[in-house]
């Protein structure tokens, strides 16, 4: 069964460093999303991407964040200058015509 994959599974970085989180969505899906979950808290929406552009973003998704679909398969989230409060589990999701959103296993980002 097709699934969303994410790399790396765990990323440790120093405050102020740039990180890129990678996702491979399900191949025939058209909608792509990033969410995050701070430890012990709700899953929060960051951004959605459709037709090669951002379709929706939350207040969390400020100028420090960017997304890209550099080729036909990958979908990336970049955080330019990480802060301590960016430490969280980051989930990529993809959705098809039936509007179900399937999530990847997540990347645990730890900012020191």
């Amino acid at each position, binding site marked *: 069964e097709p699934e969303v994959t994410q790399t790396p599974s765990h990323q440790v970085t120093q405050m102020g460093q740039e990180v890129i989180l990678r996702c491979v969505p399900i191949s025939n899906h058209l909608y792509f999303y990033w969410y995050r979950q701070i430890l012990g808290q*709700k899953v929060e*929406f960051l951004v959605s991407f459709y037709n090669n552009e951002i379709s*929706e973003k939350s207040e969390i998704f400020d100028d420090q964040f960017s997304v890209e679909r550099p080729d036909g398969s990958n979908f990336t989230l970049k955080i330019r200058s990480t802060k301590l409060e960016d430490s969280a589990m980051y*989930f990529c*999701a993809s959705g098809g015509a039936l*509007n179900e*959103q399937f*999530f990847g*296993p997540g990347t645990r980002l730890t900012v020191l």
Partner: protein
Amino acid sequence: SQQGEEDPQALSIQEGENATMNCSYKTSINNLQWYRQNSGRGLVHLILIRSNEREKHSGRLRVTLDTSKKSSSLLITASRAADTASYFCATAIIAGTALIFGKGTTLSVSS
């Protein structure tokens, strides 16, 4: 703001019993989706129910939706120890847009 809130926050049952979790939200929605999350792991999609549907089944799972009350329930029948996890509802105002998650119900099934 649109928000899914699950009830109860925590539920402990014995294997073989049924588990019912409820979700309430505040605004009109296009669909509501239920997810399972094992500790520290990813979100597993369980069921999507659309606003024009009242009930859906998938194996031992039964989901209902009452749009007049802005609430949904997830019933797991004949629970197993492997069902131990957190369960979240998530709503979308428009199909394909951001999902808004609740805080989840932590289900513990003991054998």
